[in-house]
């Protein structure tokens, strides 16, 4: 099965001493609110995003709570139909446009991309700050629309309902989406240019961490997809304001055209949401299994593959919307193609664990949870991409469950994994190990209980967006709501132990996980321009040399979690701390 092909025998640089804490670091270089609101530092902007999207996550979660609680009873447990419609629309708009899309690119991408590629900042720091402000303005419109009575169109905003029938605050809501789209474009543009032009010496494309690859792919979608939804929302607003427009069936307009334009962005947008999560997982799984990623090129190119192919299959949201029969065949065919790179990723992640040395800290638990849930989310997508099954499952709870498995099970867990993985880097402190593991377990279990019953509901035909439903569906709805309360509890825990760690947490070293990326070279929290400016990093090897025990600068790794501790003497002697000739075989499996 395994063959030794090469034996590397070079000397590796010794384990570097723990760098002294940066004084000042990016957090304490200045304290005034003004300094935060006018900062052009990518790390601070990342934190601004972190705070704002956390607020929207909570708001979206509350809306989800209203929806789930109301579904306890077949006739609506406590709100009327109108309120319910506004609640699920609010949930969708907040979670998608103001949480999921900016989550990883805005927070982790902003914070980490320059550090991972060895740059002092993103290519356009002011644009980066502007993107946060634009996002906040867009979100402001969105929140205003929601607070001033809400929107009742569903996040998909299909005309003619949204353009003439609805009496809710469609215009400000849609305008908010339009504005925040620019923020998404700015972030994507910034990340792409940065990756192209700002890489440290030696940081070739083939040595980029996979997180960078996945964000690069994400940015590609943001750049090329978002403008289409921007023009679509403009057309919708024009139609609503003017009372006449190009989707108006009264003058020969085709409402299905809106769906085409909308999904041209919004289908790739789900890859905006999931790809960064995939990037996080590649970082986390390698680190906690102490392994090179299995099939670096396959994982990197599958990100790009998803980004490109993801643009070719939007109309699988429209198989029963009255599109052409032939077009439906084409789109179903193309939809199958995107499942392949996703499958490749899952297999490679699994392969990465093979013969690893695995520990189960919170990031790893979230990461494994991601893989487990994403497998279900991805596979159920096949039911919806297949024409024959979609005609029944379309617009039922099956769809709801499917995309929550991908978006929440995938992306939110990926985001959680990332936050827990890089938290010590961002703030220089460790959170409670025990509580974080408990939170991960509760979230994963609660998630299963919430969304598995919804698959059954959908298969039985319960349509989405229904506050009233036939009584025979009640038992699954009650199960789902029960699961949701556990899930909600799971989400509450990090809201306590993460902030508490800022005060009470143990100080974290520069590289607490013994990880290989450039971001771990600087002290935690990092200094203002990320690296020692007199000594900018020069990359000598790929990103996941855990087996060799060297980081991307070719230096040895400090003892990691579970290593070098008193209860683990075996690893102490094996720790790659000792400099000297390296005897490591590179093995090829299969």
């Amino acid at each position, binding site marked *: 099965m395994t063959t030794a092909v090469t034996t590397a025998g070079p000397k590796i640089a010794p384990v570097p001493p723990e760098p002294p804490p940066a004084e000042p670091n990016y957090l304490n270089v200045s304290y005034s609110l003004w300094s935060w609101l006018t900062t052009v530092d990518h790390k601070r902007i990342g934190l601004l995003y972190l705070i704002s999207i956390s607020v929207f996550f909570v708001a979206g979660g509350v809306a989800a709570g209203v929806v789930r609680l109301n579904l306890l009873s077949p006739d609506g447990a406590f709100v009327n139909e109108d309120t319910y419609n506004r609640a699920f629309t609010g949930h969708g708009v907040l979670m998608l446009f103001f949480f999921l899309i900016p989550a990883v690119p805005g927070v982790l991408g902003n914070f980490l991309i320059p550090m991972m590629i060895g740059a002092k900042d993103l290519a356009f720091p002011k644009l980066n700050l502007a993107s946060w402000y634009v996002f906040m303005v867009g979100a402001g419109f969105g929140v205003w629309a929601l607070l001033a009575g809400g929107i009742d169109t569903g996040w998909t905003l299909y005309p003619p309902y949204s353009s003439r029938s609805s009496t809710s605050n469609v215009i400000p809501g849609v305008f908010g989406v339009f504005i925040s789209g620019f923020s998404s474009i700015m972030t994507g543009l910034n990340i792409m240019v940065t990756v192209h032009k700002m890489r440290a010496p030696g940081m070739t494309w083939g040595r980029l961490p996979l997180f960078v690859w996945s964000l690069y792919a994400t940015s590609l979608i943001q750049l090329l997809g978002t403008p289409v939804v921007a023009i679509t929302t403009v057309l919708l607003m024009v139609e609503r304001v003017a009372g006449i427009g190009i989707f108006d069936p009264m003058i020969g307009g085709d409402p299905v055209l809106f769906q085409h334009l909308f999904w041209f962005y919004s289908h790739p947008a789900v890859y905006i949401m999931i790809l960064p999560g995939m990037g996080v997982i590649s970082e986390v799984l390698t680190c906690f299994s102490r392994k090179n990623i299995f099939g670096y090129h396959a994982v990197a190119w599958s990100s790009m593959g998803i980004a490109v192919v993801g643009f070719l299959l939007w109309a699988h949201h429209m198989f029963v919307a009255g599109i052409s*029969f032939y077009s439906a065949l084409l789109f179903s065919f193309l939809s199958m193609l995107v499942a392949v790179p996703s499958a490749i990723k899952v297999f490679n992640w699994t392969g990465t664990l093979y013969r690893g040395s695995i520990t189960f800290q919170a990031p790893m638990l979230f990461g494994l949870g991601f893989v487990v849930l994403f497998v279900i989310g991805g596979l159920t997508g096949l039911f919806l991409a297949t024409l024959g099954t979609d005609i029944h499952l379309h617009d039922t709870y099956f769809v709801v469950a499917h995309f929550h498995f991908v978006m929440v099970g995938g992306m939110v867990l990926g985001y959680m994994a990332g936050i827990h993985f890089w938290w010590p880097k961002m703030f220089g402190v460790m959170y409670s190990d025990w509580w974080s593991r408990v939170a991960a377990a509760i979230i994963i279990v609660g998630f299963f209980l919430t969304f598995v019953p919804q698959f059954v509901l959908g298969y039985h035909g319960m349509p989405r967006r229904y506050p009233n439903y036939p009584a025979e569906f009640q038992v699954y709805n009650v199960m789902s709501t029960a699961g949701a309360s556990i899930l909600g509890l799971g989400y509450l825990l990090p809201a306590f132990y993460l902030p508490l760690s800022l005060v009470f947490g143990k100080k974290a070293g520069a590289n607490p996980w013994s990880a290989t990326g450039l971001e771990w070279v600087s002290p935690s929290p990092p200094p203002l321009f990320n690296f020692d400016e007199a000594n900018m990093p020069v990359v000598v090897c790929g990103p996941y040399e855990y087996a060799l025990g060297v980081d991307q600068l070719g230096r040895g790794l400090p003892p990691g979690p579970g290593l070098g501790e008193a209860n683990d003497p075996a690893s102490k002697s094996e720790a790659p701390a000792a400099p000297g000739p390296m005897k490591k075989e590179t093995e090829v499996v299969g």
Partner: protein
Amino acid sequence: MANPHTTPATATPPAAGHDTHGGHGVIGHVDSPGLLFVVFLVVIGLFAANVAMSTSGALGKYTLFAQLAIGAVQATFVGLYFMHLRHGDKVVVLTALASVFWMGILFVLFMSDYMTRNRVMG
């Protein structure tokens, strides 16, 4: 693409970080006004041809394609000379091509629906 797993010993020396200027120094290539003027005349000439062709209606149902073809040639001239794609980085050219390619995706797949929407399988 370099091998991502190059071990430290075989690592290539620092390189390839940023693909910057290619021998033009900071200023880069300076256009000759004569060439720009020729390009200007070509674009205007094509426009005149477009108007003449469209007004005469000589091409019948192919008029639209001819119009768009002329537009595409004009845009290519603007892109290559006015927007300096001729001297652009590889990645700049790639970006320009990508935008056209993605526009193509949108058009082709839209048409896959709109050209066959009312066709019934025989």
